[in-house]
């Protein structure tokens, strides 16, 4: 199905729903669809190539203050989908009859249409895979290529129509030296640039050579550290796990609850905001509300805002700001600092260069204390230069310390990190993050 065909299909679905409502009913409908090529690679060869063409509708039927939702798969051909859509509508209608009013129901009645189509230029995946493997000749490459169009749509019975269509790719690969010693690299975008890919691969090869040096085994203790933007992505990801949620803050479940009350604070250079305007995610949310370009969350080290969904807004009498029900950032932006990349290593001087972190979780959520592992290319640095790869280490420390009194500085350039998440569907989330030099970070195992 071509891009325009999917958009036309969704408008036809909306027209069908418009015609199928009975008096007093309201609907919202979301479309999540994609036509994705996924190719797994291992040992420099193809492990598992395939294509997934999927289309999900999420239908929300409202009558007064009673409502229910159904997610259903459809074919993308309305002649075939008419019956299952009407069956779902009838099932929801029957369910509503026995439900009480929902005091927290919220949906948009102000019509705001949006349309954002970013069609890239992607060669056939089969050809790309050949060029990727040729570039990795002689190397132990493992990874995955994901590419193709992703569609997000919204429609409601007030006539609002929103469309978000992105044709993109994301290649994530690791070059292995041996055992768990590897360099991980990502190349993503909207148009495949052979030169840009070649440069990424050359950089990965260079770092791979560093892993051939004898590894250093560090004892548990506190070490000075530089966290690359990729490592920061894992820490920011933990903060996104309810940390910025208006509902989690009000119910005291957020890991940033103490930051919100002033019982904890971060370094004044730390700032976070949800910057939909600079991200890859759609500018509309599940109930049809549009999102502001920016929602400040942390400014000057202090919490100044949160992500509030329309439902949370109703429950706690707050203004909402276009957040989805999960209240998880989809375009998190962390303000950059003053350090150049070269400054970061010289400022680190002696300590750990942490290329990636892995498998983080809370060891004490109210204290925003997090544990996790170093992974991939992490090195011991002496005199501002990489001296040796290090064996994996477990850290256990509080973000209130790491980005608080232990923070020395942030890099000037914040890197755009497009999510590689493919659970159920390809994610359209992203983060823009700097690297961070910290005075000490606690390693325990």
């Amino acid at each position: 199905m071509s891009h325009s065909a999917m958009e036309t299909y969704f408008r036809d679905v909306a027209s069908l729903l418009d015609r199928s409502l009975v008096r007093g009913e309201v609907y919202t409908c979301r479309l999540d669809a994609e036509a994705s090529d996924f190719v797994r690679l291992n040992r420099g060869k193809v492990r598992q190539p395939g294509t997934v063409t999927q289309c999900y509708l999420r239908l929300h039927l409202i009558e007064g203050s009673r409502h229910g939702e159904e997610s259903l798969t459809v074919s993308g051909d309305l002649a075939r989908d008419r019956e299952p859509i009407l069956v779902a509508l009838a099932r929801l209608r029957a369910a509503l009859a026995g439900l009480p009013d929902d005091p927290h129901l919220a949906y948009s009645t102000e019509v705001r249409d949006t349309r954002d189509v970013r069609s890239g230029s992607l060669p056939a995946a089969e050809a790309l895979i050949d060029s990727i493997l040729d570039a990795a000749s002689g190397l132990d490459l493992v990874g995955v290529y994901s590419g193709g169009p992703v569609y997000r749509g919204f429609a409601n019975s007030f006539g609002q129509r929103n469309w978000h269509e992105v044709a993109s790719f994301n290649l994530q690969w690791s070059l292995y030296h041996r055992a768990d010693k590897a360099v991980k690299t990502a190349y993503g975008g909207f148009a495949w640039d052979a030169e840009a890919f070649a440069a990424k691969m050359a950089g990965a090869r260079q770092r791979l050579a560093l892993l051939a040096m004898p590894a250093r085994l560090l004892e548990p203790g506190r070490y000075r550290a530089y966290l690359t933007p990729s490592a920061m992505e894992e820490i920011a990801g933990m903060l996104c796990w309810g940390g910025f949620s208006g509902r989690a803050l009000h119910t005291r479940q957020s890991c940033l609850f103490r930051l919100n009350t002033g019982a904890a604070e971060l370094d004044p250079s730390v700032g976070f905001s949800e910057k939909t305007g600079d991200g890859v995610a759609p500018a509309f949310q599940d109930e049809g509300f549009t999102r502001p370009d920016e929602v400040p969350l942390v400014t000057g080290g202090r919490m100044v805002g949160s992500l509030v969904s329309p439902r949370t807004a109703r429950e706690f009498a707050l203004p909402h700001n276009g957040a989805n029900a999960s209240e998880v950032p989809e375009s998190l932006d962390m303000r950059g600092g003053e350090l150049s990349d070269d400054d970061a290593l010289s400022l680190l001087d002696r300590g750990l260069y942490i290329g990636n972190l892995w498998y983080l979780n809370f060891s004490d959520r109210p204290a925003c204390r997090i544990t996790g592992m170093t992974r991939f290319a992490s090195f011991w640095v002496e005199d501002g230069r990489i001296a040796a790869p290090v064996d994996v280490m477990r850290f256990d420390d509080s973000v209130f310390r790491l980005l608080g009194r232990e923070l020395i500085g942030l890099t000037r350039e914040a890197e755009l990190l497009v999510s590689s998440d493919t659970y159920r569907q390809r994610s359209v989330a992203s983060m823009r993050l700097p690297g961070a030099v910290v005075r000490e970070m606690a390693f325990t195992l």
Partner: protein
Amino acid sequence: MTPSSLFRHLGCDADFWSLRFVDERAECYAVRKNVPQPPFYVSDRGAMLTAYAAGGCGYAATSDLSIEGLQAALDRAGVWARATAPKSLIDFRAVPRPAPQGVYASPEIDARGRTRAEWYELLAEESVAAGCDPRIVDWEATVETRTAEHRLLTSSGGDVVQSYRFVMPGIAVTAHADGDTQVRTLNGYRGLAQQGGESMLERFRYVGSGRRVAEEALQLLLAPNCPSGKTDLLLLPDQVILQIHEAIGHPLELDRILGDERNFAGTSFVTLDMLGSYRYGSDLLNVTFDPTCPEELASYAFDDDGTPAEKVYLIRNGILERPLGSALSQTRAGVPGVANARADNWNRPPIDRMANINLEPGDASLTEMIAGIERGVLMSTNSSWSIDDSRNKFQFGCEWGQLIENGRLATVVKNPNYRGISASFWRSLERVGDPSTVQVLGTPYCGKGEPSQVIRVGHAAPACVFTDVDVFGGEA
């Protein structure tokens, strides 16, 4: 048209092809802070076509279940197989082409279930009971019921129909006072999950659990932090399952050992040369792959490649016997495995997964286990999990802790955590609970794979005692 009649209409010149059809339906209900949340229904239907051609293998999945949609997917699978054959990691000409025949059905598959109104009534009662104190700031009673019809048809004549029914109730309570927040749940988030009907509600005393869980959350608010130090550790089954999952299940996955997951989920400290001789744990450690336990979450008769499933020992008397490897991985590695090629849905290909990974019971009652500990900590219900990409250095946290002093349960402690190394931790297994301590649990949220998949896995486990474990609590 039925899947089998659709399959008969498809044409392909591949050496072998298959259609895997999945039709899952779910109903989700919740009452949060005594407010019924809107019902959420799922109807998820689609198919995956797989083709072997010229020594390669490709797949294509589609939610278009018309003949045209399926044929287009089969054609695409064939294109992938041929296009990648020269660079395929595996020569699929050497891979078995199964022709399985059989059926499977969950227990109580046709038993009457609660109506929507009856579910809301039950959840409302538990919600009211849970919101029993001003310090309880958030609480929720939930349930997800799910049915699934899986059909596998192969060009070699295979035809497998497997019908599943799942019930997954939950309770979560958040208590807050003096700047501290404690969360208590019924066996963890979606930790109560079984195949079959609603009789599981009685087995896990769901009725009345709202009040019970809330009272425990309030106790945690008043509790001191878990002390630090090396001590004996008594894990109850709802934490033992996490320990099995992360530190036995994942490291034994053969595709990890073969390197497929190194870019994402990770590798394994286990290597093929360890099979048959490596001491994974103490003599008391007996771990099985058991798809035959009726109510367990991942019981089935065939995996998604059509391999018949049977109970197999993975670790016997502490010695590693075999990995979790599907027929394809067995061919690649040249070692025996299990029937564990599993996909989480129609739109993801099968890979090596855990299914039901169980720790076989020992001979100690819970009372005897507690009585045998002079100084230690009991921990239950996982709240935090983290382990390195080789599945070795781990750190896990629990919702509930209780000191054991001179053979008796003593003070409740909050934020209990422990850390260790898989390769040595299981060797410190000192006592294994008898069948009276076993709980059949699992999780519907095991993540792995590229593209990523989240799948249902079951774990049955007794209580277990480990010695000299590094335990600690939260910030002061």
